[in-house]
């Protein structure tokens, strides 16, 4: 187990290097330092000297190779430095600031969607083959086929204009700010539950086809006891392993929902940075995102081995 973990952690290093190489190539392929400088200087016709001083201040006046060296060093040491566009802003401070709203939204959305998905899946698996099953599955497919933008616009309209219910976008910290979360959470609920119901239903039905279930039934165990005591327990293994990989990325938040609802989280920060060509911020965020993603994969594999004794890690 320990050896496996160590090897997996060592495997993370080339991936991280690869990702930072990719972001580097992407961003220096897209924008020359001069364009970045011109954009961030905000003067209409920046003179050549101004540009050069800006490039010097932000460390862009080097060859690509030196630039890459600095880039890699700062990432591997988690020294993200300052933002390119707002030179006063330290990136770590902004990340700390944005992590809370992001986490708030992402975790609320995650738990509600997951809870609803699992509950519905159990109900549907219990009632399999009936009209309720068919209807729920049809609704699940339909809800997955509607673009999320339509949900956002529709719910904002419904709550904002028809019900005249408070805020349709924005954020406030603290307990009273939870009302800002209702709409985004609802959007992720209606757009995401269908996927989970379908997925979990397959897991549950996969288990019902197993021999031990047939044995239990043959022994005369009641049907709902079979479902809750035998099937559900075993079906939780794939449920947990498919779910746990999402948990680390909860910190980075939901890129799309945040920008739709104007929540000042990290997803919004990242999109703003891309639009503002803020390379320092983008690379920091992408690096963190990758780290969390890989960590999630690792967590999945380990949990899989912990939960299912048949799986051995080597």
């Amino acid at each position, binding site marked *: 187990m320990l050896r496996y973990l160590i090897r997996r952690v060592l495997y993370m290093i080339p*991936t991280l290097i690869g990702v930072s190489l990719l972001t580097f190539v992407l961003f220096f392929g897209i924008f020359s330092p001069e364009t970045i400088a011109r954009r961030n200087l905000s003067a209409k016709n920046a003179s050549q000297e101004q540009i050069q001083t800006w490039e010097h201040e932000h460390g862009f006046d080097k060859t690509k190779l030196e630039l890459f060296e600095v880039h890699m060093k700062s990432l591997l040491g988690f020294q993200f430095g300052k933002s390119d566009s707002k030179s006063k802003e330290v990136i770590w401070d902004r990340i700390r600031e944005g992590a809370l709203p992001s986490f708030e939204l992402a975790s609320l959305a995650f738990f509600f969607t997951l809870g609803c998905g699992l509950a519905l899946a159990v109900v549907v698996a219990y009632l399999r083959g009936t009209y309720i099953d068919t209807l729920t599955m049809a609704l699940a497919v339909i809800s997955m086929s509607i673009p999320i933008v339509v949900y956002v616009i529709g719910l904002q309209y419904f709550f904002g204009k028809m019900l005249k219910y408070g805020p349709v976008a924005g954020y406030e910290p603290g307990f009273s700010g939870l009302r800002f979360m209702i709409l985004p959470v609802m959007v992720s609920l209606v757009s995401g539950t269908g996927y989970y119901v379908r997925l979990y239903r397959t897991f549950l039905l996969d288990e019902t086809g197993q021999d031990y279930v047939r044995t239990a039934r043959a022994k005369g165990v009641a049907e709902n006891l079979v479902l809750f005591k035998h099937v559900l327990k075993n079906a939780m293994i794939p449920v947990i392993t498919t779910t746990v990989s999402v948990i680390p990325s909860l910190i980075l938040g939901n890129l799309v929902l945040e920008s739709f609802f104007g929540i000042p989280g990290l997803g919004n920060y*990242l999109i703003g940075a891309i639009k503002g060509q803020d390379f320092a911020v*983008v690379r920091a965020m992408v690096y963190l995102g990758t780290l969390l993603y890989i960590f999630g994969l690792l967590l999945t594999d380990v949990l899989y081995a912990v939960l299912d004794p048949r799986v051995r890690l080597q």
Partner: protein
Amino acid sequence: MTLAVLFSNLIANLPVIVVLVLVILIFVRSRREVLWREAYRRLGKNNLAKVAMGILGIYSTLVIMDCFSWQASRNEEPRTVVDAIFQKPFERTYSAPLAPTTSGEVMDHPLVSKHLLGTDSVGEDVVYKVIKGMRTSFIIGGFSCLVAVPIALVFGLLAGYFGKWVDDIVQFLYTVFGSVPDILLIIAIVMMLDKSIVYVCVALGLTSWTGLCRLVRGETLKHRDREYVRAAKALGVSDFRILAKHILPNLMPSVIIAVTLLFSTLALYETILSYLGVGMPPGSGSWGNMIDAARDELTRNPMVWWNLVFASGALLLLVLSLNVLADALRDAIDPRLRTQ
């Protein structure tokens, strides 16, 4: 109609035509095989799947009609078949569904003289816009798949079959591409190149191959040690031939289902990109742009709902048919997988 115009149009519509030709080829080729004939027979019994295929057929016909165009005279823009049939004279601004046309030739016809689904802010007929959006949607889905599927197939097959360092490299590649948030990659690529449909598709293709690649790799791993592959190896068949002639046909069912689902995901993705401002260039007729415009339209008094409803309705119908078809295909190809 000059030949040059027709030709330049063919190039612009190449992705659509290539995808449709590929679909037809796969269909015709697969009818010869017993497994697939069985599958089609089972598919034919599924009424829902027939409806879905009918809808997709109508969509594809309209898209093909939109691909062929001609110039009526030297100074005019080339017009496609769809333009000729569905284009209506512009109104001054919004008009409600079923409103009669007020400009251009006045014809007293219950269908032709009306804007069946209303008009948008510049007075363009919504029926026409919705039909134009189909082509955009098909290009996004089709062209991106055209980028993603070959990459995924080649990498997945090689990694699964050869294993060892090839597998390591491929796994490295898809972890790297899969770890970067895809919206970020898309926005970056679109900003780097240009806001045009081709680059959007390339960007979408480059971000969406990882999932398919993982699937192909896993399936190849399963087949690599089967008896038929060993037998082929023992007979001295080359690796390339084993991959192309023996393993690939066995992967086709799961790949086709995955691609159908990928197509629908990509069609949905376009709306998000339009919302974030990196989607189709304005004026190119896309459902994403129509839905995006609805944010302002809903707040008008009286409310303008028809753009949003009909654009998302058309998209819903497309995605829904694709999803239903994918499910039906899965059931038809492998009845054991059928969910009770």
